[in-house]
């Protein structure tokens, strides 16, 4: 009897097609992705039926942190209501985020120093450069130079502790326009830069801030009490930036 020969099949699988597919997927993700921006506080926005999309350019995002949870699982209100600002510039490279942020910092510095003649704050060129790379900022103005000198890891460490007094832009005391608080100094600076850029020929940010209300987006946690949100909205009203948008997630009418 002849032996039955078992034919040995090669275990090699042709991975070329697989590779093609993965490369395609990769290209898709690379092209469609907008990176999650690093934010000091994670908030869950409430949902709404509104379908207007958040613009990616010419946008000032105001983040209001929500309450945290402490070790015992209790609500921790000490981290609530901290305000952070993020500025996104135009697609046009002359008015890019970096350039706008630089301008805003210098503008804010000059108006801050006018109010605090005794202890002015000045920035070195390196600090200004670092600031322009920051996506979202939110420390007291007097602490800003020191903050900008830190390494990225150290900055993150500072931002992690929201209950720290230097974290968050102060919003209190907003009625007196001759003595604006730091939040108002920042917003006013952004507004002035937008107006200056408008004179230079780019009115995208200025019109987004003033006319349509697309330029300012308030992002806050859904469980935050209204009294906290009101502090921020009230400041905007005092600044006559009455039109703005509230960031929401999508839901349907039936929910």
């Amino acid at each position: 009897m002849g032996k039955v020969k078992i034919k040995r099949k090669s275990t090699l699988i042709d991975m070329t097609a697989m590779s093609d597919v993965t490369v395609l997927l990769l290209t898709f993700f690379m092209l469609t992705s907008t990176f999650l921006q690093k934010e000091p506080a994670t908030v869950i926005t409430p949902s709404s039926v509104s379908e207007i999309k958040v613009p990616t350019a010419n946008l000032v995002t105001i983040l209001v942190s929500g309450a945290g949870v402490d070790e015992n699982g209790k609500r921790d209100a000490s981290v609530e209501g901290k305000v952070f600002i993020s500025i996104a510039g135009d697609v046009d490279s002359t008015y890019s985020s970096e350039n706008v942020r630089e301008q805003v910092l210098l503008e804010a510095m000059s108006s801050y120093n006018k109010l605090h003649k005794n202890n002015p704050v000045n920035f070195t060129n390196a600090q200004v450069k670092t600031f322009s790379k920051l996506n979202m900022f939110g420390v007291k103005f007097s602490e800003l130079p020191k903050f900008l000198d830190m390494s990225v890891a150290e900055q993150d460490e500072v931002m992690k502790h929201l209950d720290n007094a230097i974290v968050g832009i102060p919003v209190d005391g907003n009625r007196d326009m001759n003595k604006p608080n730091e939040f108002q100094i920042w917003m006013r600076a952004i507004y002035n830069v937008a107006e200056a850029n408008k004179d230079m020929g780019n009115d995208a940010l200025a019109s987004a801030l003033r006319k349509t209300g697309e330029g300012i987006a308030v992002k806050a946690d859904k469980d935050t009490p209204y009294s906290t949100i009101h502090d921020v909205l009230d400041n905007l009203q005092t600044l006559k930036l009455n039109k703005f948008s509230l960031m929401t997630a999508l839901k349907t009418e039936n929910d």
Partner: protein
Amino acid sequence: MAQIEQSDKGGKKKKGAQKKMQIHVDFTPMVDMNMLLITFFMLCTTMIKSQTLQIALPSNEKVEQEQQNKTKQSEAITLILDTERDTDGKVKFDAETGKPKHTIYYYEGKPVVDDENKDGIIDNPNIKVEKFIGNTNGQVNGIRKILHNRNKQVLEKINVQKEKWRNKEINDEQYQAIAKEIRNDSTLTRPVVIIKAGPNASYESLISALDEMQINQISRYQIDNINGVDSALIISYKTINGIPLH
């Protein structure tokens, strides 16, 4: 692991015949690397862009008494938002629906503030209570029903246009333009909604209230600050109906 195999099927080689090379490149590491990159991009991207709700608030400047816009009493409806919180300040959730406990106190027209026996409790506050329920089985419910009924004329007209738009008789732009016109048509009875959020009311409840305006096609609404009269009304309502104040 690229392999170059020489096919060498035994026997004679013809002189001058080109050597046939079978080139086989193993793509497995390439696929591995791509998968890693894909995972990275998938985790780092935000596919869902957030939506926004645009609002316009009045400026903080003092308005002279004569310049103030007076709302007709018959048109006004005031919503006062509140959210139930526990002693910690955490939002309470409804055990059945799993939704946060938002309450809407509302009154139509002017608040009634008679206090005959002077005990600080308003005798008959004209306050009613509703909740955000949304639609149940396609029927409007809760506060939406109240607002829906107040804005019936506008909604009926818009629904006619919506039907046309669904049947592709008019395009999207035309529909939006007509809807806007109807919303602002002063010959129809339309409500003016005043939204007041209490200090405990969560941000979510404010957004829900603004949502109701959009769903019910109400063009005239405003966000106002809560005042003493409103607080007194709510406290009186709670006291009369035996609801704990906190």
